[in-house]
Structure formats: structure tokens, C-alpha cells
């Protein structure tokens, strides 16, 4: 079924462009399955990985059954077609996120590898031979230099910078998080200083849902000539993102969180920077010339794509981007905004539930983390699972952030374009049932606003 065929979604809700929810859900075969003895699947874990529409599945299958070959190798027809499919996907993904040109898009295994690519390229620059790589000098890091991150980072945008600092002798600094779950930028000029070489931060927290003021951090970084690295894993899938307009030097995101396959991530980098950067992984495809004693590198993005790359995954991600583009990211974002508002209101109204994240919808995305008083997050997750409600529990790869708030683990519900208001009700009902099971349900009327 084509997107937009159905028109019967939520007629009681007025408004401009809305998502055709029934038609969208029909595009995602997995949503029809049941779990745990026949319970309807209520999938609220898209922040971890999203489900895939048939167009993505079909695009991968079509590629494999008609054009599979190693890209950028050989002169045969299949190789040509495979290369066209691969590079065509690159161009569409570049356009989708506002990269200035397709060559600014580097395919990686996942977003974690994309961030590691930058971190390792910087340390490779630190040890580069100036005679061979004169351009690498500007990326050099050493004692006295500083790398700035934030306390709300996913481990993927934290550990690589810790390790880079360890290797180079640079110092790691970070912005804290305020009690109302926002980045604490009060001492901006003390954290970002002329010693700062890199500022790496998340666009949207995978735990709190907080959307960070990218322009403020970019302006501060640019003032001191520091590179900016944006973790866009939780923003690119859920809102219109224009990387060139944001002004960041690098942005990383993953395919599997935006309706695409796993096994593919993306690094978008400003071309003039990529051009000067040393490679991360070396081998075939990334070379210009190879001699027995030395090698020169290919131009980006090939320089950063050593070996035979993932191809059907790139094609699948291209199809995912087409799917999202057809719907329009504004409509997707508005839909998720509505679901987030419903979840915040209804969970808070239960009583005994504390939201770990901003309680208002300003600069806030659709990750709703919470704790249920008297019940550990793992136990909440287990009870929700028994009702067919699939959420994430734990520290969501943001352990320091949880430590900051003195919480061992949270429950996280995260939404996407295929989720419905009814599923928010299912979540809330399951949380209530969980409270009753563990004997911690507040008396009716004791809840906030009752």
C-alpha cells in the first residue's frame, strides 16, 4: 500500500497535515504480530531500534536479487548497477540531512563507528608524518588541549573522547545537566576556551528527550576554532535536520533508528575537513596509490570506507529516507510531539511516576523516561512486557547521566511515526497494573491533578 492512501485516521483530531496512521501501520508488517500469549504488540522502543516498512525490506531484496555485486570494483554490469544503487542512496541521504554534497556522507557500520572515525582520525593526525600529511597538523591534539562533551551523552559519544584524551594527553571536560534536565551552559565561556579543540554533544538526549541548543554550542566552538561533532542519532529520525544550517563540522546517525537496516551508520563531515583528515581504517578502496613502503589516500568519502562496504544496507537506508521524505519530517515531528504530550500528561496523572526529563514539550523529543516509585525499572519493564508493551529499561547507555540524578535505571518509552494515542493508553494502563501488582498504586484521587 502506498503512503497516503488511507484517510481515516483520527478524524476527531483537527489540524493541518496529519500522518495517515492506519496506512503507515500497514506498511510495517511486524506491528501485526502478537507477543506473550497473544497480546497485541505495543512497540515503544524505537529509540533503541525502529521497525522497517515494506519499502525498505523490498528495496534490499530487490537489490540483492537483481544487482548484487561489490561496489567500486570491476567493470561488469552488475558492479555498475550496484555502484549506482550505492551512490544513489548516498546522494539521497545527503539531501535528506542537508549535507552540502554527497561526498560529505561517509557510510560506517553504525553511528558509534562514525564517532570513533572522527576520534581516531584526530589521534592518527596527532601521530601523522608532517611531510606525508601536511594537512593533518590542524587536527593534532596533545597535553594542554581540551575536548568538551556533556553529562547527557550516550556512551558512544563519551567513551571515544575519553579514549582520545587518554591516547593524546588532552583533557576531557564536560557540561553538566541542570535539575530540570537541560544542559547547564551557565559557565559556557569557562568550559569552552581557546584550549578547546573539539566540542562533541548530542542533538537530542536518548534518555531525557532534551533537544540541545546546537547554535549556542556551535557559536562558542567556532569562536575558539574548535571542531564540533553532533550525535544526531535521536534527531535525524524524528525531525527535519539541516546539518549545513546547524553549522556543525561533523554529525553522526544510524540507519536502524530511522526505519533503515542495522549495519549502517552515517558520518556527515564538512568536505574541506574530511579532505585533510587521515584515515581511520585502512586497506582496499581507501587508497590512491600503494607501493611496498607507502600509500597515498583516496579522496573522501572513499578514504573512510575501506574494504567492500555494506551495500544492501545503504540501499535500504536510501529507501527509508525516501519513505520519511514522502511523509515529510514536519508531520512526523508533530505526530511524535502529540504522543509525547499525551504520555507526559497521562503518566504524571497516575501518581507515583516521576518523569526523568523535561515535563514540558519545549525543545523536547519523544523519549519519555520515568521511574515508578517502589518498583525497580527492570520489574516495570517485565510487567509491561507481559502486557505486550515493549519499552527499554536500564541506563540506556547513559550511565553517568543516571548517576547524576541518583537513579540506577529508568524505564524509557520512545515513539515513532507508527505509534498511536491508543498505544500511549496501553502504556499507562500497563504501568498502573504494574503499580497494583507490586502494591504501590497511589489511591485514586491522590494523583496529580485529580
Amino acid at each position, binding site marked *: 500500500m502506498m503512503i497516503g492512501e488511507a484517510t481515516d485516521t483520527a478524524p476527531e483530531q483537527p489540524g493541518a497535515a496529519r500522518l495517515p496512521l492506519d496506512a503507515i501501520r500497514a506498511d510495517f508488517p511486524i506491528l501485526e504480530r502478537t507477543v506473550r500469549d497473544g497480546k497485541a504488540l505495543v512497540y515503544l522502543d524505537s529509540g533503541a531500534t525502529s521497525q522497517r516498512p515494506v519499502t525498505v525490506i523490498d528495496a534490499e531484496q530487490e537489490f540483492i536479487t537483481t544487482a548484487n555485486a561489490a561496489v567500486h570494483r570491476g567493470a561488469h554490469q552488475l558492479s555498475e548497477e550496484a555502484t549506482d544503487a550505492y551512490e544513489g542512496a548516498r546522494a539521497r541521504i545527503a539531501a535528506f540531512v542537508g549535507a552540502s554534497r554527497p561526498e560529505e556522507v561517509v557510510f560506517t557500520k553504525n553511528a558509534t563507528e562514525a564517532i570513533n572515525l572522527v576520534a581516531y582520525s584526530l589521534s592518527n593526525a596527532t601521530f601523522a608524518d608532517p611531510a606525508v600529511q601536511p594537512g593533518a597538523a590542524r587536527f593534532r591534539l596533545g597535553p594542554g588541549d581540551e575536548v568538551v562533551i556533556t553529562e547527557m551523552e550516550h556512551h558512544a559519544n563519551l567513551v571515544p573522547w575519553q579514549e582520545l584524551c587518554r591516547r593524546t594527553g588532552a583533557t576531557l571536560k564536560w557540561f553538566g545537566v541542570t535539575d530540570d534536565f537541560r544542559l547547564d551552559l551557565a559557565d559556557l565561556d569557562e568550559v569552552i576556551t581557546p584550549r578547546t579543540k573539539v566540542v562533541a554533544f548530542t542533538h537530542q538526549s536518548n534518555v531525557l528527550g532534551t533537544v540541545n541548543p546546537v547554535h549556542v554550542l556551535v557559536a562558542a566552538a567556532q569562536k575558539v576554532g574548535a571542531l564540533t561533532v553532533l550525535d544526531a542519532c535521536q534527531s535525524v529520525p524524528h525531525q527535519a535536520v539541516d546539518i549545513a544550517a546547524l553549522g556543525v563540522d561533523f554529525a553522526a546517525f544510524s540507519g536502524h533508528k530511522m526505519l533503515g537496516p542495522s549495519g549502517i551508520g552515517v558520518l556527515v563531515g564538512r568536505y574541506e575537513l574530511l579532505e585533510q583528515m587521515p584515515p581511520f581504517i585502512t586497506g582496499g578502496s581507501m587508497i590512491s596509490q600503494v607501493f611496498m613502503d607507502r600509500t597515498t589516500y583516496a579522496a573522501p568519502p572513499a578514504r573512510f570506507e575501506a574494504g567492500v562496504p555494506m551495500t544492501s544496507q545503504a540501499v535500504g537506508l536510501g529507501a527509508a529516507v525516501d519513505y520519511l521524505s514522502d511523509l515529510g519530517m514536519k508531520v512526523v515531528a508533530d505526530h511524535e510531539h502529540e504522543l509525547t504530550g499525551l504520555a507526559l500528561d497521562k503518566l504524571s496523572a497516575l501518581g507515583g511516576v516521576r518523569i526523568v526529563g523535561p515535563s514540558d514539550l519545549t525543545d523536547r523529543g519523544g523519549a519519555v523516561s520515568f521511574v515508578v516509585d517502589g518498583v525497580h525499572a527492570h*520489574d516495570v519493564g517485565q510487567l509491561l512486557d507481559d502486557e505486550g508493551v515493549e519499552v527499554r529499561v536500564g541506563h540506556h547507555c547513559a550511565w553517568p547521566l543516571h548517576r547524576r540524578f541518583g537513579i*540506577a*535505571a529508568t524505564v524509557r518509552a520512545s515513539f515513532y511515526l507508527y505509534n498511536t494515542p491508543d498505544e500511549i493508553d496501553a502504556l499507562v494502563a500497563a504501568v498502573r497494573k504494574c503499580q497494583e*501488582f507490586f502494591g504501590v498504586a497511589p489511591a485514586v484521587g491522590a494523583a496529580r491533578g485529580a
Partner: protein
Amino acid sequence: MQMEQLYQEIILDHYRTPHHAGLRDGDAEVHHVNPTCGDEVTLRVRLEGTGPDAVVGDVSYDAVGCSISQASTSVLTDLVIGKPLPEAFTVLGEFNTMVTSRGAVTGDEDVLGDGIAFAGVAKYPARVKCALLGWMAFKDATAQISDRQDSAHTQTGAQR
């Protein structure tokens, strides 16, 4: 609803009123975490005697975690305190076998006592680590004591 089978009353009782909780003197202290969820236990073991004659004198702990990990650590202390070490390890082995069996092994109540209440955990692979957190900490702590005793013996032997 399979939740009553997973969260049996025995488990909820141990969770609400954990036995032998708190940290007391021990011969070794370990800190174990479940890196997927951040659950943590600090656990101390005190042995009476050495070698195969050692008896578990005390197991004390301070833990943050879900009901399964908290209750399981509480049950562990009931089962092993006062037992000769080899016997405690038999219980540990039986418990480990049961919770990692995906439901194939129901457990011997004569060996596991309240521990058989955790048979239901085996059907939820994501929770097996929770059930084993305290038990693995106990295993680690006793191994540290044994290693120390072994090296002490070796040194004594070398001095002779």
C-alpha cells in the same frame, strides 16, 4: 498472566524484607555490576576454617537492583551461611543450572530451598543475569579468599 509464576510470593517477600542485608566483617569484598542495567552489589564473605574444611561464616551485602537480583541475593545468604564451602558450591551449581536452563530444569527443592522460586526466571533470558548477580559475587569473593590462602601456603612452603 505469567507474572505470578515469575514473581512468586517468596521472591516478593525476600525483596521486601531481605535477609542478612547490610555489610559486616568479611575476609573478602567484591563489587559486581550488571552493566546492561546498572544494578550493583557489594558483597563480603567470611569463611571459618580453610581449604576443604572451610565453612561459610557470613555473607553480607549492600545492593541496588531489581526485585529478582535483590531477592536472589537474600536467598543465597539463607542457603550458604553455615554450610561447608563445597556444599555451598553444590547449591550454587544447582542454582546456576536451573536459571540458565531456559526452563528445562526445575531445580531440586531439597538443595535449593526458597531458591526454586527462581525457576520462572529461566524463561526470561534478560533476567538471568539479575538472578545470578549476588551468586557470582559470592563465587568471586570465595575464590579471592581461596587464592589468598593458597598463595599464603605457597609462601609458607617456600620459606621452609
